């Protein structure tokens, strides 16, 4: 399926993101850490992948490789079937840390991607200001990041990522610091955004239910060195509704994932 001969057919089936037999080892002074081994993954255009795995299983490392901040020791990363030198131009990456600039207000922080694109500040401000209330940051445009709670900072970082307006979103635990209610709101908001713009999403989470609720496919990584130990095609209809987590089907799949993660059931 990766090497279609018919060009007309390949146009639809070339994976948006393709990892082929990726391995990554970090060699430090004291010890060598094998972070990822033999990862192969094909993500179709418009697919929503959730990635779950214990701490240290190399989830963040994988996103860093895709975005091109580091290169794999072996294996290949293709985007739209091509090996780009600057994959970063194709993806919007939201790292685990919020990385807001302490000297910029929330509004000035979220418009950074727009500024880098050369959009005039006034226009960038208008565009971002419209979105602030949706992200629960309505009254905080001119607040400095340290005034905000961890959850609010994360929402600002999320908005900043969205404003990059890329076709591929790499989200590293974007909702990790949020309270349960806000988290559900933003999940639904993300799904709605995704339904409208059909981005390809790779979403890291520690939360089994979140992985199921959002994803088309859940990828489970093993403890270090990370490899793919389980793939679950999520059997839930779209559009997703928060009520679905009460379905027996949902429960069954939660059990399957917990089992794959080695949690005693």
């Amino acid at each position, binding site marked *: 399926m990766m090497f279609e001969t018919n060009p007309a057919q390949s146009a639809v089936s070339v994976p948006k993101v393709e990892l082929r037999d990726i391995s990554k080892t970090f060699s430090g002074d004291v010890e060598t850490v094998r972070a990822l081994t033999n990862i192969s993954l094909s993500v179709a255009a418009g697919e929503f992948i959730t990635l779950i795995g214990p701490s240290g299983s190399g989830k963040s490392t994988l996103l860093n490789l895709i975005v091109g*901040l580091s290169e794999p020791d072996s294996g290949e990363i293709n985007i739209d079937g091509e090996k780009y030198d600057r994959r970063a131009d194709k993806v919007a990456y939201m*790292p685990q*840390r919020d*990385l807001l*600039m302490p000297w*910029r207000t929330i509004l000035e922080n979220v418009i*950074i991607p727009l500024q*880098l694109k050369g959009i005039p500040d006034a226009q960038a401000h208008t565009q971002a200001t419209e979105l602030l209330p949706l992200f629960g940051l309505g009254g905080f445009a001119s607040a*400095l990041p340290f005034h905000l709670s961890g959850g609010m900072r994360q929402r600002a970082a999320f908005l900043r990522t969205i404003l990059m307006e890329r076709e591929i979103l790499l989200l590293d635990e974007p909702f990790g610091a949020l309270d349960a209610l806000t988290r559900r709101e933003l999940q639904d908001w993300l799904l709605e955004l995704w339904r409208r713009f059909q981005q390809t999403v790779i979403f890291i989470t520690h939360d089994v239910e979140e992985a199921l609720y959002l994803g088309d496919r859940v990828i489970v990584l093993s403890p270090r060195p990370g490899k793919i130990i389980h793939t679950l095609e999520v059997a839930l209809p779209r559009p997703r509704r928060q009520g679905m987590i009460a379905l027996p089907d949902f429960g069954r799949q939660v059990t399957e994932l917990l089992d794959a993660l080695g949690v005693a059931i």
Partner: protein
Amino acid sequence: MPAEPSNTEIGYPRVKNHLSRFSNEIMPPVLLIGFVLFAWQIFASRSGLSDFILPSPSQIIRAGWETRALLAGSIAITMLETILGLAIAIVFGLLIAGAMDLSPVVRRAFYPILVASQTVQILAIAPLFIIWFGFGLLPKVIIVVLICFFPLAVSTADGLASADADLVALLITMGAKRGQIWRMVRLPSALPSFFSGLRIAVTYSVVGATIGEWVGGSAGLGLYMLRSKNALATDQVFVAIAITTGISIGLFLLITLIERAMLPWYYAARRAEQWEQAGIY
């Protein structure tokens, strides 16, 4: 001042406004200095020590007033040397710091030399500059530059290097060019350390200028001090000490004010880290 213990709250009372801040932070040292001056005045006038051993504060003020014309000229000269030297040191310090940040080779070449240069005694090389450049403004300015350059260059370089590597990486993924990363991340990150370097430099700068004048000057507070010492006019020596100290403190406060105006985020964040109210967040 110890807080009144209260039954309902643990910790210190919150500072409410500038007035209570004034009485909390500024009043105690002012009162202490006032008390010391008062005790000094009493002691000097009652102990029978001769004036040239220990002049009293009032006598020092009188000596300053009597030499005010000479003092005004000296202050102007010393200030000029100080400000010129500082300005040049800032320009060079920033240039070297920027170069060290851009090129690891430059950094490896300069950093150890910069550190080693600080161990050279300024008193020992000051006469050399007098021999080379005469008794005018230039040698003093050079001495000030030499003294101030180091803390500025090193602290700014450290500040530039302290930029959050993850933040830089994120901006690279967003397509930021090198110049944009400098402007948006590295320079703002470096500002707090630049200012702490500047505060150190400013306190050294007056000393540097005075040393230059002392070693070989035709004017300035250093020369005033030297002449007063040679004439055993101890009261005038004290005048010079008070004025150089005053200039240093004034410049220090000025820099602190500029810093607070320019880096509100830095001070606000630091204040937030030390809420007066006890609690773990």
